[in-house]
């Protein structure tokens, strides 16, 4: 199992805080919505990711556990 960052795009309103707190995995598109790098979080990023999740005003950011061999 590894952990990835995921955005609930319905809840997200593009505040952009996540990209500031976790630039290693999140950048913003032309309209200010987060584009998430699907690579698993490394141990040193874990704390930053948790801080980004907690900071989202819409609770739209989540950490999702994934089986490493997940196909899609």
């Amino acid at each position: 199992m590894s952990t990835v960052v995921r955005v609930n795009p319905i809840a997200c309103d593009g505040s952009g805080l996540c990209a500031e707190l976790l630039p290693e995995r999140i950048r913003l598109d032309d309209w200010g919505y987060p584009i998430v790098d699907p690579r698993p979080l490394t141990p040193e990023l874990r704390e930053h990711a948790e801080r980004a999740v907690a900071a989202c005003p819409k609770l739209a950011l989540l950490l999702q556990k994934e089986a490493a061999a997940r196909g899609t």
Partner: protein
Amino acid sequence: MPSARGLIELVTDSGLRGRGGGGFPTGRKLAAVAAARRRPIVVANGAEGEPVSFKDKLLLRRAPHLVLDGAALAAAAVGAREVVVALDRMAGEEIGVVSDALDERRDRGLGWRLAVVPPGFVTGEETALLSALQGRDPKPTFTPPRPYERGLNGAPTLVQNVETLAHVALVARHGPHWFRAVGTAREPGSALFTISGAVGRPGVYEASFGTPMRALVERAGGVRGAPGAFLVGGFFGSWIDPVAVQDLSMLDADLERAGAAVGAGALVVLPAAACGLDQSARVARYLAEESAGQCGPCVNGLGALAGALETLAAGHADCRPDALRWLEQVRGRGACRHPDGAARFFESSLEVFAGEVELHLQGRCSGRRGEFIPTGRTW
């Protein structure tokens, strides 16, 4: 008729995949729902919102009991006692036919319900359909949970396209070997294809997977006049130029080479007289407007991309660099696959009509403008 347990094995062995456009293996979906702890519900999805697809409506008009047989068999296989048949409000004739057919059913231990949902391109997406069936706006929801885990009223829900259910009934009757007698090992069976545009006899045709595109168009009376391009896979599909289409057949393995897919089986022949860029801009605007409006990248991205195609069609400015960046920014960024399907269409429009883009930027156009591909209800 096979036992409940047997049906899932038969369907799995048949290799049947969903015919709503997603192509998910039906046997796997049945097994997932059957494994749920709570009693599941079956939803027969007849909400065919795509303007260039008519196959689900035709099937419901002509053979409603085949669809209902499939739904009853699927219900027995997964342990459901309730089947909801979902049709959109605009499908007046189908609502009447299905309503009459439901009155004729004598399935023991099975409750049927006909549900009429709002029309719309996205309504048929399974989570959007479940929202509509629960009295909410017909908009997709964030997953997980997937419908097979938690769907209608919280119950595990098997959502199957109506054509898929008809195939389930036929597999139960004739067996997986019969089903596999046509098509290929990886894409077995036959499917219903809606063929429209510049053909002699537009309509719905059943054909095996792997039927050469040329033969399929011949079935529909052949191309009327000179073809400009073929839209394969409907509005989530790709344009293919008339030369490339000659060597292709209706098979994902084959269409992949042209960046296309069978999808829900809609094929539109655009005549050479119509401007493909102008048509693409119109379909692009339709797809942008049909966004459920929930996800920022879809709302902003599809709107921007439709605007870009309109700018190119008007010959105002070469905004292709922006458009290519936006394509990458919309893929995979919605709660559903609407932005992905639309991006596929936009990308193929820019590729196949690249020559036309150059002409328009010089203030010229090789064809006529005006609505040729319908973006409203026409059937």
